[in-house]
């Protein structure tokens, strides 16, 4: 029994040591699954330039990032949208821009859709492609799952509520959305442009629709003209100091633009 107590005490001491140790040269980032792979890569390059520093990147979604930063569970949150008015207690630092593109199956010849047509399709008022100039084929609406920031951005842009959308298929991530549309000739969905452009270039049978006469390209997103785009932000609670400040500056610098582009995002101009 005594031995057990001693072992527990020792374990406790080791743990508190490692936590105290954490303060100086360790940084924890949590949040959006869209931003996580990018920040992982930036963190790796930062670690290589600054020996002894450890940056842990964890996934969990934008809402979780806000929560974690407020609770002090993480030093920096990753949020794939602009902050809401209710989140004014936090400060955001823009690291990249991601555009959302409307995707169809490659065999679907509909040249473009107006905002109103897209709204009518997603609310179930238009059920067949021939109503918008396509062939006689049922429309399969692919929507994002609750909590995804792509969904929030999509709803915000078209002034819709999630309860209005009559979805046939609910998906989680970009890749799942692309795979779903590629496998269903009558499907319409929306995903990150970078991901869609890459898959389209590599032969996946999908097609990106232009939005408001603006072609869905990474360049259009970076220029800020493309309407359906979102910010990828790092958020902190108080003004960052020391390592956190240095890392945020690094993530916004020109030293990581190649990493941003490798993840199919646009670096802010």
């Amino acid at each position: 029994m005594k031995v057990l107590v001693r072992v527990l005490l020792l374990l406790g001491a080791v743990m508190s040591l490692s936590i105290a140790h954490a303060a100086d040269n360790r940084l924890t980032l949590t949040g959006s699954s869209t931003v996580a792979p990018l920040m992982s890569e930036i963190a790796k390059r930062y670690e290589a330039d600054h020996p002894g520093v450890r940056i842990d990147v964890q996934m969990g979604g934008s809402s979780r990032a806000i929560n974690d930063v407020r609770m002090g569970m993480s030093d920096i949150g990753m949020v794939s949208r602009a902050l809401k008015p209710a989140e004014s207690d936090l400060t955001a630092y823009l690291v990249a821009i991601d555009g959302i593109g409307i995707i169809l199956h490659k065999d679907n010849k509909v040249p473009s859709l107006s905002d109103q047509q897209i709204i009518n399709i997603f609310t179930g008022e238009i059920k067949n492609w021939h109503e918008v100039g396509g062939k006689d084929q049922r429309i399969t609406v692919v929507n994002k799952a609750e909590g995804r920031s792509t969904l929030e951005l999509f709803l915000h842009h078209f002034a819709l509520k999630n309860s209005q959308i009559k979805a046939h298929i609910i998906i989680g991530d970009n890749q799942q959305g692309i795979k779903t549309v590629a496998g269903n000739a009558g499907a319409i969905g929306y995903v990150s442009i970078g991901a869609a452009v890459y898959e389209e270039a590599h032969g996946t049978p999908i097609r990106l629709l232009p939005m408001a006469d603006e072609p869905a390209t990474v360049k259009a997103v970076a220029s800020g003209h493309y309407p359906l785009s979102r910010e990828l932000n790092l958020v902190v609670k108080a003004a960052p100091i020391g390592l956190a400040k240095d890392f945020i500056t690094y993530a916004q610098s020109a030293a990581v633009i190649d990493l941003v582009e490798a993840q199919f995002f646009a670096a802010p101009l």
Partner: protein
Amino acid sequence: MADRLFAWSMSTCAFLVVLSLLWVLGDVVTEGLPHISWTFLFSAPENAGRAGGIAPILVSTFWILLIALVVALPIGLSVAVWLSEFAPVNSRFANNTGIVLDILAGVPSIVYGLFGNAFFSIYLGMGFSLLSGGLTLACMILPIFVRTCESGLRAVNNDWRRGALSLGMTKSAAIWHIILPGARPALVAGLILGLGRATAETAALLYTSGYVDRMPGSLLDSGRALSVHIYDLSMNVTGGDTAAYASALVLVILIMTLSILAQGMVDRWFKRRLVVS
């Protein structure tokens, strides 16, 4: 005629099961095999996993599994022995324990993940760590392991218990030398089920052992498990499909190897003690 039709439909079903398994395996092998090499197995991931390998991820996976098994096996076996050998017949506590275990065995793994995050990571202060992930998996595989072992122990013929008693063996000696070796097939089955479930787990690990793909330096470091890596590659990383298939192939091979090893180990431990069977 009806009899033949019946037999024929049964064998068709069996064929379909085998075919679907072969289909899945064939898909993983044909897509993953060209990408597998020594450098893939022994180098760190680069460019969000599209290039490079999975060495740190394999190491993290092994640590998480080891922690889960070291914690779950002794506790699970003890509970199973208590339920089948010591608990009084019609004991309300034993019955309730059984019901609770059955419910726990059916709980989705994401619930274990959220529990592990709240209890191990936050309440006990382990943070995102291999330790927290391993302990969460231990909780997850415990019910299934206990139930399989228990039913195996109950299936051991009562004559063996009486025989041991009449030879003057103590109860603990009878359990150790007669009953546990007799329930060997069930123990193997429980171990393999638990092992398979733990190795393939994603949801329970996302919020406990985490997403960091660096080589872990201690058990309190966060480490990405193989299944989490596959999930990330196929869902969040555009162009990560080939690496995802290769990792999936490694995962399948890993589970098969571990199952064969587990079978061999349990056999060797218990065979020696049971001469007549």
